[in-house]
């Protein structure tokens, strides 16, 4: 008698189709699954989002006769591979005395076959799966099929070898790389073969996406494949009761990857012997270490050694002011140095372990690390190797990517040796192959909510799901994003997988990385898109790439920058893209459909082509020098003064003209005398207006890194306690506009009255928020729109965002801000993909 064969292997034994479908909300932050189980044949019952409870459609149970025994096939999709899901199912099945098997199916999640069970027992089993599932797993869809053909005799429950199935409309989400768990920390501290071991992990934690070259998630498809398990580890690996059962990254001091240590001598790397105590002493003394870790390589050094910090800043930042992140030994030190809310602490300690930008208690302590700012990017150790760095000597270490500016982070050992030679004194390098480079994620805390600045380690490749696209069978799409803080996204069957943060795609090296990530993701998730989307900006490399793909037969589409932002917000909130919705999209620059520089647009989703409509904006600021104006906002300040007939010398006498203009006084004199052409280039961008004010108030000389002027404006405004209810709106050609001119002139008046710059800064941000709120409230009341979104890089600004949220709530409107997708350009590719899908309806 056959004991282990597929349930249906001939025509007549095809299942009688009764399906159970379980749908979940695709959002990440909520760990409570929102589940609906419905009869798939009642297709119109597609769930909307809202209820947080399991609803069984009781009709199902009524129709079934519980006394009969059936064979069952359960397909679970979501994050179910590499998280200890199969052993969990095995243990659960054993507990309920179920017979059958469980196995990984390439891109179709996990398949469970259960023999000879009643309806009611299966329901209990499914319920328990939902309730007890492993920590890192996430169930996004369950399909259940029932068969009543011949019964099989099974005397046990098996974990079967994985099979590669890439058929059907399934989608398998791979788990993300997560920081070590509590149990692994314990092993690191006390277990004989894992004491101080740098690669401690288990099925509940450790690297995943960064070490996987293919699916299914088996050791053979990871870079741990080159390390054979020692007898101890092998025993754990095959013990169903062990938390390292089928832990693909399982290893220990005796069999796992190892760190080697190199010292720079005469500009060459010489291998040396050092223990971790010696390393932490060297760090304390100001030495710079480059360390290969999970998904990348970091430079690590003491934040309190000014000379060292300056050296790295000069070498890796061309002396610009961009802040460095710091890693703190544990949460107590973070609380010591920063103001942190309970939510901040939860996120910092979560398995994702991102960098969180918090307000520093004493900014002067971090003047070298985060110049001109009152915030600090902090992170906790996420690999046990990092724990070793601290020892008794260090509480805080600078923790920054070891890449050369605009190059991808080095991940191969050769690159690491080469790239770090001109900066590091020591090198900590290991022999575990990094498959995908993934930066540390960065979040900005607004106290009670967080915004993702950089979505990378711990967050990718977690997909987003839009059920309607699955139902409509929308084609596979590749979207290429914008150019700064770039990501790409792949869409398949309603699943949107955004790549990790890819940095600025302005160099060939960075662009090669984008292409590699594209092919890696396509291979991993079996996606072969024939549709490709990019920004409208004609000079972006991504646009150029899209045009090249068009020659290869791809159907292409360009999506306006701010429209992409708008649509990304709908995906973040799992909204129906046909529901009434409008959003303020505010940033530094996006190429408009009219070729102009947009950046403060109130856009409504529309059910007719082109599926959006601009409802309001801001008045135009001169932007003749384009990118040069962005880099030296003093140029815009000067032109704005000219435009408004404001006495120029009064303002510029107080500023350091030699510093705020690249070419000093001669540039100032020229622009001062330059006439406006009749049709001069201009911008509505709010980001640029913030830049202008940062120069006006003397906070920065120019933009030495992305966002710097606007960030310093906010940093100083946060020191002020004043508030304002004022707003400045004008109407031009029947369109409401935020009135920069009035705000600017009023700010100048305050300045003349010798009001404190910090108060003026705060006032500016408050009135901007009020003006945006007023326009939104006015228009949305007229249009009966309830949901008002805020997206674009400007909304990282805490003062503006918090104030608008409060204004909208007072007006009984529903403010929608980002949760799991960056408001900045990291979210563009997701917005492009969903918009492109919208264009493929019918």
């Amino acid at each position: 008698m056959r004991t282990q064969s597929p349930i249906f292997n001939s025509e007549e034994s095809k299942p009688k189709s009764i399906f159970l479908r379980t749908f979940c909300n695709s959002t990440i932050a909520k760990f409570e699954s929102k589940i609906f189980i419905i009869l798939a044949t009642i297709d119109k019952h597609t769930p909307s989002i809202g209820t947080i409870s399991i609803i069984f459609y009781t009709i199902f149970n009524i129709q079934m006769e519980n006394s009969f025994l059936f064979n069952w096939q359960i397909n679970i999709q979501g994050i179910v591979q590499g998280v200890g899901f199969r052993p969990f199912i095995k243990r659960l099945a054993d507990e309920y005395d179920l017979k059958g098997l469980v196995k990984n199916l390439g891109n179709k999640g996990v398949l469970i076959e259960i023999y000879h069970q009643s309806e009611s027992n299966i329901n209990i089993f499914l319920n328990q799966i939902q309730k007890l599932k492993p920590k890192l797993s996430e169930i996004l869809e369950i399909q259940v099929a029932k068969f009543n053909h011949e019964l099989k005799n099974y005397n046990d429950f098996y974990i079967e070898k994985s099979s590669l199935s890439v058929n059907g409309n399934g989608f398998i989400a791979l788990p993300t790389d997560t920081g070590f768990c509590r149990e692994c920390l314990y092993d690191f501290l006390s277990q004989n073969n894992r004491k101080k071991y740098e690669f401690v992990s288990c099925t509940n934690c450790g690297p995943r996406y960064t070490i996987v070259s293919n699916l299914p998630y088996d050791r053979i498809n990871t870079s741990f494949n080159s390390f054979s398990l020692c007898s101890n580890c092998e025993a754990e690996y095959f013990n169903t009761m062990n938390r390292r059962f089928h832990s693909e990254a399982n290893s220990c001091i005796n069999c796992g990857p190892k760190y080697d240590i190199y010292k720079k001598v005469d500009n060459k790397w010489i291998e040396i012997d050092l223990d971790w105590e010696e390393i932490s002493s060297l760090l304390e003394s100001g030495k710079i270490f480059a360390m290969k870790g999970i998904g990348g390589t970091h430079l690590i050094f003491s934040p309190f050694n000014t000379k060292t910090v300056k050296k790295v800043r000069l070498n890796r930042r061309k002396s610009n002011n961009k802040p460095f992140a710091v890693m703190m030994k544990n949460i107590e030190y973070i609380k010591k140095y920063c103001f942190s809310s309970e939510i901040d602490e939860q996120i910092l300690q979560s398995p994702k372990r991102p960098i969180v930008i918090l307000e520093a208690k004493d900014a002067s302590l971090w003047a070298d690390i985060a110049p001109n700012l009152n915030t600090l990017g902090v992170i906790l150790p996420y690999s046990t190797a990092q724990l070793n760095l601290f020892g008794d000597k260090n509480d805080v270490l600078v923790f920054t990517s070891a890449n050369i500016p605009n190059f991808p982070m080095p991940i191969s050992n050769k690159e690491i040796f080469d790239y770090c030679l001109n900066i590091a004194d020591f090198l900590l390098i290991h022999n575990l192959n990094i498959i995908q480079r993934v930066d540390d994620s960065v979040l900005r805390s607004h106290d009670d909510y967080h915004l993702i600045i950089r979505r990378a380690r711990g967050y990718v490749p977690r997909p987003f799901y839009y059920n309607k696209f699955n139902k409509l069978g929308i084609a596979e799409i590749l979207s290429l994003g914008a150019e700064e803080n770039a990501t790409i996204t792949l869409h398949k069957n309603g699943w949107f997988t955004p790549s990790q943060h890819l940095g600025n795609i302005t160099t060939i090296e960075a662009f090669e990385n984008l292409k590699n990530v594209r092919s890696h993701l396509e291979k991993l998730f079996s996606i072969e898109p024939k549709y490709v989307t990019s920004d409208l900006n004609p000079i972006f490399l991504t646009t150029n790439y899209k045009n090249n793909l068009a020659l290869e037969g791809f159907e292409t589409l360009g999506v306006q920058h701010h429209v992409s932002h708008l649509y990304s917000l709908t995906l973040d909130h799992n909204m129906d893209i046909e529901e009434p919705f409008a959003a303020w999209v505010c940033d530094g620059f996006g190429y408009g459909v009219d070729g102009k520089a947009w950046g403060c647009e109130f856009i409504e989703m529309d059910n007719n082509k082109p599926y959006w409509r601009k409802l309001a904006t801001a008045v135009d600021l001169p932007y003749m020098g384009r990118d040069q104006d962005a880099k030296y906002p003093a140029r815009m300040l000067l032109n704005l003064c000219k435009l408004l007939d404001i006495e120029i010398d009064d303002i510029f006498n107080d500023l350091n003209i030699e510093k705020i203009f690249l070419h000093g006084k001669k540039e100032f004199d020229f622009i001062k005398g330059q006439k406006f052409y009749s049709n001069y280039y201009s911008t509505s961008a709010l980001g640029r207006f913030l830049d202008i004010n940062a120069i006006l108030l003397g906070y920065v000389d120019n933009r030495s890194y992305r966002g710097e002027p606007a960030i310093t404006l906010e940093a100083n405004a946060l020191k002020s306690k004043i508030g304002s209810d004022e707003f400045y709106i004008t109407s031009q050609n029947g369109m409401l506009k935020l009135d920069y001119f009035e705000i600017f002139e009023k700010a100048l008046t305050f300045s003349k009255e010798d009001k404190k710059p910090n108060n003026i800064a705060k006032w500016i941000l408050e009135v901007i928020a009020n003006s945006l709120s007023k326009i939104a409230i006015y228009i949305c009341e007229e249009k009966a729109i309830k949901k008002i979104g805020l997206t674009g890089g400007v909304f990282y600004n805490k003062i503006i965002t918090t104030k608008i949220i409060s204004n909208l709530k007072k007006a009984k409107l529903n403010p929608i801000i980002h949760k799991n997708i960056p408001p900045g350009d990291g979210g563009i590719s997701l917005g492009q993909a969903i918009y492109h899908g919208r264009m493929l309806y019918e």
Partner: protein
Amino acid sequence: MNEERIVEISHGAGGRKMDELISFISKIIDIKNNQEDIIGPEEMDDSSILPIDVEQREIVMTTDSHTVDPIFFRGGNIGSLAVAGTINDLVVMGSKPQYLTLGLIIEEGFKFNDLAEICKSIGEMIKNSEVRIVTGDTKVMPKGKISNLVINTAGVGKLIRKTPIRDSAAQKGDMIIITGSIGDHGASLISLREGLNFETKLASDLHSFWPSFKDIITDPKIRCMKDITRGGFASAANEIASKSKVCLKVNEDQIPIKPEVQAICDILGFEVLEISCEGKALMIVENGSELEIIKKLKKFDFCKDASIIGYVDQSPQAQVHIITDIGGTRQLMKPYGEPIPRVC
């Protein structure tokens, strides 16, 4: 002072007034000088008749229309520009320039004095460049329908090497040479237009390649040669890269750029590699020949900044890469046509 004489609409009407204008122009240019072997210029027939090339070399021909604002600039004017532009186009193909045509479209009200100065420059330029104007035309357009003066010149040259110098001949391993600092012409003009008065010494690099390049273009080791004009270095380099199906790898810090040219571009927000030149060539030469060629070039004052700026690679095809000292390699695209911001 007498009222200044200006071009009237009737000067283009085909009558005696037109004859007057034409003879005014041709006299100043001295068109009829050294034209004994040609029927046309002397007789003012409908066409000219040129002797056929006795060496049975291929004829090289080009045409170019010129507008420039302002029409007089430091280092030249629209007349010398029109002549040098056409000569240079012929030279970079590997030919000796011989005959030019001259078509003038003049705006009503244009000053005869200005016209005289322009014709003088044309005369000097053709003399120094050893070419002859063999036929011409003038039209007058009503005021406001055209800006000042537009000049069209066509040119005929004789190939003086076995095969012409083509944009499509660059090969992996070849070296990239630029014959002098780039962007001088464009930056000088822009600064004049915009009233940037702090760089008063910067002049256009307007220069004819002939006869200077007589001994250079015959060198078989030269694979490609391009007159850098509109669209600047970016446009010329991309043309070669895409026609030759190669990648040009250029070291940013080896591209000769005058600090004042860079400053003008910074202040006005322009990309210096997209700024036009009027006497600079981009050359692709066989590996190993570059030092010799640079040595020859540097003998000429207008090529004293000639530099080796990079090399040719096989792939990625049709791209120009600018390698920076820090910050990676960026792709230099063909200019879009107007400056587009990219900084978000």
